[in-house]
């Protein structure tokens, strides 16, 4: 018997090959039929700061959440051990570099001062010294197996055998840690080789050298093989996508028929545009897919406004950004609302205000996106709970934008953007491209025809047709008009389209209920808390509390009816909201839009993702006491 679920951390300095390790390991695991989700945590820094990958692996399905403590910590350096040693559960394993055993926590300049003194304090309390050797002692005392290897010896051997360039050492250090992790988890060398081949693709030499590293690791650690063996996989995958949230959204945009993407570089959004640039045009079986014009603009103002321009020319267009960039786009969104221009803004939240925690996640821009831009007009805000949802929701975002002729904000976050997962292939048979294009009526064309809430939309360049657009109030032709009667009709038209969205979009796409109603509680959230919320609901059931999770997918217009129905059925007591923010603002939005009072709130705003253990505890606390607000903060 092995483990059906297991979580681990791979840690090392930024740019030390950690990313490569994650790519290799996740592909090797997927190849053998395991489900994986891996979160990437890193500082806003190029060289030297600590970064790590927190991974959950399952033999049954794609894991939904991250959890502490972990079974395995694979470290590239001493800082990783100092930072995470407390996260290893007893019976777990630490893999480390023997050469840095003498390193003291006080000798590591890249550790932030407050963290360093906290670690020093913790070690003192444990009666341990400040060096890595002492930490190893503490761990062994707790029943953790510590396995060391000399990285220097392996690297030296590689330099002698292959004459490798010291500038590419990280490629091999990553080989050491992936190999040791694979060995401990009971993965075979062929699977590992598959991982190397997929990641290094055309670079055969790198594959050969990494296989050589794996052989050395296997020779040296033979006796530990399968120490943390995973169960034989029971997943039903035959093919899976291994991709990040950024990748999945970009893929979905290509499927949705995106033809124009503008962006100004910002973490964690830029990778999406990079991906699109890579796949900007392809030819398969004689069909051209694309082309997509991907343009790096001079700022976010140009990004949104050029995307709107492209939309006027009749193409599906979007931009991807994060908080600081979104703030600059707001005036453009107002113009798009005024001119009923379909456009999709993919908004990956990170920790604010201002540059805040630029590389960490958050859900703190809910209200800012729901209420962004001056004047009143219809705008839709969607969110997605996981990678696969994000795929379908991206297509939905374009369909809604075009059918109802309005801006759609797809509100995601850094957690999703940068986490890699094994994802079932989307079912394209389910996908429809709904453009809401109606034939242009004969006679003089009126872009803003008032006969219906949705006027026939003709692209600029339609033969024989001309039209005007303006940010000023306008008549049916698009010419400026300040006449009050026209104002009332036009203004109301633009707002009342939102009613159509509310009535026509299927309830299941607006709000989803997970679990059996009629239990003890209702947990409510949106976006990337979905996975951990579902796991927490399952987990707490083992402690005797039965409940549901309500995933609010359409944040604006708020699914008022749908939420009220759920709450009516499950009783209004014990509703708990959870969010990566201080305010847990979904509760306020629900109060405003649906008139429901949600007193109990679980908040996390450290920029690190909510983990299963802390959410389950917090949930239990809100259910068993009259504590209304729990702030959680686990993770380094």
């Amino acid at each position: 018997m092995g483990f059906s679920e297991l979580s681990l951390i791979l840690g090392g300095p930024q740019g030390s090959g950690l990313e490569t390790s994650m790519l290799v390991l996740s592909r090797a695991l997927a190849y053998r039929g395991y489900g994986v989700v891996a979160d990437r945590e890193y500082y806003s820094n190029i060289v030297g700061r600590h970064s790590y990958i927190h991974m959950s692996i399952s033999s049954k399905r794609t894991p939904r959440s991250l959890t502490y403590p972990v079974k395995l910590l694979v470290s590239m350096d001493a800082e990783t051990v100092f930072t995470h040693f407390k996260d290893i559960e007893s019976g777990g394993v630490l893999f480390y570099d023997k050469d840095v055993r003498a390193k003291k926590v006080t000798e590591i300049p890249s550790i932030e001062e407050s963290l360093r003194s906290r670690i020093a304090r913790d070690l003192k309390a444990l009666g341990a010294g400040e060096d890595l050797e002492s930490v190893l002692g503490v761990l062994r005392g707790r029943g953790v197996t510590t396995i060391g290897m000399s990285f220097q010896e392996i690297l030296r051997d590689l330099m002698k055998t292959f004459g490798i360039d010291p500038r590419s050492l990280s490629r091999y250090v990553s080989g050491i840690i992936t190999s040791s992790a694979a060995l401990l988890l009971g993965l075979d060398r062929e699977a590992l080789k598959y991982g190397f081949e997929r990641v290094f693709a055309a670079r055969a030499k790198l594959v050969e050298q990494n296989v050589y590293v794996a052989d050395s690791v296997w020779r040296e650690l033979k006796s530990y093989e399968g120490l943390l063996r995973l169960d034989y996989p029971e997943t039903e995958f035959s093919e899976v996508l291994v991709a990040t949230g950024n990748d999945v959204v970009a893929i979905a945009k290509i499927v949705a028929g995106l033809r124009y993407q503008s962006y100004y570089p910002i973490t964690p959004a830029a990778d999406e545009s990079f991906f699109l640039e890579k796949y900007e045009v392809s030819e398969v079986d004689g069909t051209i897919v694309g082309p997509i014009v991907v343009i790096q603009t001079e700022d976010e103002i140009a990004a949104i406004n050029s995307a709107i321009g492209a939309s006027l020319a009749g193409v599906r267009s979007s931009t991807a950004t994060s908080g600081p960039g979104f703030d600059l786009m707001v005036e453009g969104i107002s113009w798009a609302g005024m001119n009923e221009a379909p456009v999709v803004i993919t908004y990956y939240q990170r920790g604010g205000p201002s540059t805040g925690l630029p590389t960490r996640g958050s859900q703190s821009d809910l209200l800012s996106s729901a209420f962004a831009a001056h004047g009143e007009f219809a705008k839709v805000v969607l969110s997605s709970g996981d990678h696969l949802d994000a795929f379908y929701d991206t297509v939905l975002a374009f369909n809604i934008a075009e059918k109802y002729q309005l801006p759609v904000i797809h509100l995601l976050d850094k957690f999703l953007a940068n986490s890699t997962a094994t994802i079932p292939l989307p079912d394209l048979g389910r996908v429809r491209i709904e453009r809401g294009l109606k034939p242009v009526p004969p006679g003089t064309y009126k872009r803003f025809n008032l006969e219906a809430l949705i006027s026939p939309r003709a692209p600029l360049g339609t033969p024989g047709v001309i039209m005007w657009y303006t940010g000023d109030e306008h008549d049916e032709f698009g010419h400026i008009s300040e006449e009050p009667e026209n104002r009332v009709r036009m203004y109301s038209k633009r707002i009342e389209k939102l009613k159509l969205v509310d009535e026509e979009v299927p309830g299941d796409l607006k709000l989803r209920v997970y679990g059996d109603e009629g239990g003890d509680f209702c947990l409510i959230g949106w976006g990337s808390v979905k996975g951990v919320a579902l796991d927490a609901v399952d987990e707490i059931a083992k402690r005797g509390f039965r409940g549901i999770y309500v995933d609010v997918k359409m944040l604006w217009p708020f699914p008022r009816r749908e939420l009220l129905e759920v709450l009516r059925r499950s009783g209004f007591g014990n509703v708990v909201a959870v969010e990566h923010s201080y305010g847990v603002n979904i509760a306020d939005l629900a109060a405003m839009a649906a008139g429901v009072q949600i007193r109990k709130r679980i908040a996390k705003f450290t920029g690190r993702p909510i983990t299963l253990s802390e959410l389950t505890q917090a949930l239990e606390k809100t259910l068993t006491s009259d504590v209304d607000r729990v702030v959680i903060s686990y993770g380094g």
Partner: protein
Amino acid sequence: MEGRGVSFKSDVWVDWCPGCGNYGILTAVFKAFAELKLDPSKTVIVSGIGCSGKLPHFVNVNGVHTLHGRAIPFATGIKLANPELTVVVHGGDGDLLGIGAGHFVALGRRNLDIVVILHNNGVYGLTKGQASPTLPLDAKTKALPKPNIQQAVNPIMLAVASGYTFVARSYAFEGEHLKNVIVDAVKHRGAAFVDILQPCVTFNDIFTSEYYRKRVYRLDKDPDWDPVVRKPEERISKMLKAIEKSAEWGERIPIGVFYVDSTVSTYEERLSSRLKVYPKVNPASSVIASEDLRPVVDDVKFKKIFSDLIVRVSKRV
């Protein structure tokens, strides 16, 4: 275009102040578009915000009246999405060189085939006469309580330095000259810039039509003036000449073409070297779904396109 005949004049009442230089510009636009025989449905005027920003409503071609300073980004999106369109930007000096200056520079760097027409009146007309980025230091127009303490930017110099490949100046009430410059600018392939000296009768009592009438002279009257770059080696010297010429201001103000360089690749060409099928197959002309609303990318194509990210599971036996 059906019904409307050859006139480019729309039905909208023109509401600029009587005597405003914008009237001269509008008339020149009508004439230039007629001479170019532009198809109104394939032509788009994109404007910013200001008195000048209203221009598209007066013209019977597609009009997109955007945000203050942002006409160039809108125009960029329109042109890239449908490269068959003729796209002309109209903006004020505050619009293009103040709030929108970053976009102005960026368009030069791209050399995208768009015409930018600057309504240069030295003031913020629509907000009642504050100093614009082209008003010289120490100038005190009548709406200003005190003399201007910011320096002026030279639009021609900025355009040349930014990479525009057609740079010219004309005067709003020099009708024939202005029309010809606009025609040449539209014909030029690449980013074209026209600086139009535009009297603002209401707020600018310094740069009046009387002021300009006395001072403007035509560059093309000088047989030695040759602004055209014929081979890349000439680029720097022609640029320097254009810049030097553009510094001439005061008693004599040159109008005409300052710089033309067709040896620089356009953004469309740069894009087509990457996208191959572009501009023939472009965002606006390409298909994204079938009649029955299914995406072009089906399950089979999906696996081919994204094979790099797909892992075929092979459990151990």
